[in-house]
């Protein structure tokens, strides 16, 4: 019996713990610091182990783990979860304008801009563009319809560029040359 469980646990470690860094990075977007993120990841794996016997091998383990993490995080935070569905129309109006993407950016600026995005957009951008989850995986993870995933991703990327553009303007990254170039180009 003990051998059985030990084998089962070894199998669980083998297949699941490889996703620890991915979960950790997304956890960092949900909580305030690394220690809390580590706790959330551990709690996620613990929950996953407890229901591992219900996991069907061959189905998507990564999406399953992410789903458990979001459930774990939002259990007891019902109100916050509801806020994940924002009034998207308002945002759509504000982003009708799409400035050119700055040509020069440091990684710190990019991260800072990402962190300023509203949570619901930030999460989808992180899942899609950094952790490279498919739409289907994001649908499973966040339990929102695919249309919402696509529109949030589209708007999230746009908001990120807007943040960066305002940053670049403030830092004087838009040079005369690049402005001239973009004007020249648009005349064509």
């Amino acid at each position: 019996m003990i051998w059985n469980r030990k084998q089962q646990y070894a199998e669980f470690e083998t297949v699941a713990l490889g996703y620890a860094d991915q979960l950790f990075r997304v956890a960092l977007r949900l909580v305030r610091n690394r220690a809390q993120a580590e706790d959330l990841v551990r709690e996620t794996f613990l929950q996953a182990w407890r229901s591992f016997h219900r996991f069907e091998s061959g189905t998507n383990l990564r999406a399953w783990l992410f789903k458990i993490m979001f459930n774990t995080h939002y259990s007891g935070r019902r109100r916050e979860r509801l806020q994940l569905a924002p009034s998207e129309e308002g945002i759509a109006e504000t982003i009708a304008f799409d400035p050119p993407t700055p040509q020069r950016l440091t990684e710190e600026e990019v991260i800072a801009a990402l962190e300023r995005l509203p949570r619901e957009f930030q999460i989808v951008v992180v899942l899609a563009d950094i952790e490279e989850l498919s739409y289907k995986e994001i649908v499973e993870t966040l339990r929102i319809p695919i249309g919402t995933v696509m529109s949030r991703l589209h708007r999230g990327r746009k908001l990120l560029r807007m943040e960066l553009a305002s940053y670049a303007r403030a830092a004087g990254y838009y040079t005369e040359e690049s402005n001239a170039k973009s004007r020249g180009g648009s005349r064509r």
Partner: protein
Amino acid sequence: MDCRNFKEMLDSFLSGELLVETNHSVLRHVELCDACRAELAARRRLRVSLRGACLKETMGADGHARLRERLRAEAWRGGMAGVKKPSILTRLFSMRLRLAAGAAIIALVIGGAYNLSHLSQRLIYAAELSSTFISQAIGDHDHCAAQFVDHEQPEGMDEAATKYDPAYADLDKIAETGAQGMRLHAAHICSFGGRNFAHLVYTRGSQLISLMVTERDARAMRQGVAPQDDGLRAGLQQALRDRYTVSAYQTAKHVVLVVSSLPGTENRTLAERVAAPICERLRRVEVYSSERQAQRRFLHSLMASLGQWSDSMND
């Protein structure tokens, strides 16, 4: 397509989500419009730098060790739903058998505890690949693969490779299912920068793709220390350098790589299809044998101690 349409579609284009025809019109527009070409380059750079910056954030070797250790402790304390407790069964045994069963359980618990503490003591190294290693893989792809583009499909992995490492024997066959839609041009062992690679050269359309397996030694690791772990913690790692994308899996003793000039996501998908099965097979060969040995040793010692114990009961 005008500039406004182009800007709307650009993100989907970069993620490879557009239909072939729309893709073409995006590319046609890029050829004609300087501003949009600059925008394409800027957004591509933004993606790369966003991903690069975020992927630097990891739990670190310490974090992983802590996670494993605490998870083991908590997982074993809490038990697992769906596992029945054997307490009722023990009532059916006679007094003597119950004593024997008790002794066996104690032995198992001690053995299990020993095994667990032994496992958690094992050092877990940061499983990041060294930059020299990535350069060697790209170098081999760059110099070797191109020479084989016009070659016919080989009969199988060449003999020299199999002799070098028996684990390289049927790599082409294991990758076959995942490699559908690609043409195999070479399956051999080659060397670049002092490193030997089992090298499968594929083409898909005009794209040249290398699937490689090599040893996971100290030189392959960023820390320059021979790895002791099973490589699983590493997951699928990805590196972008110049125009090449490298996706790598690690096992206890090998690194399996896919190198091409495809965009990151595509290379990754490809690696999941062709490199993952190879990795699974290598893991079975490497880990299974060592675990089996440990299990057998433990059972032998358990049987021996039970034998001694029942002898002393009979006396």
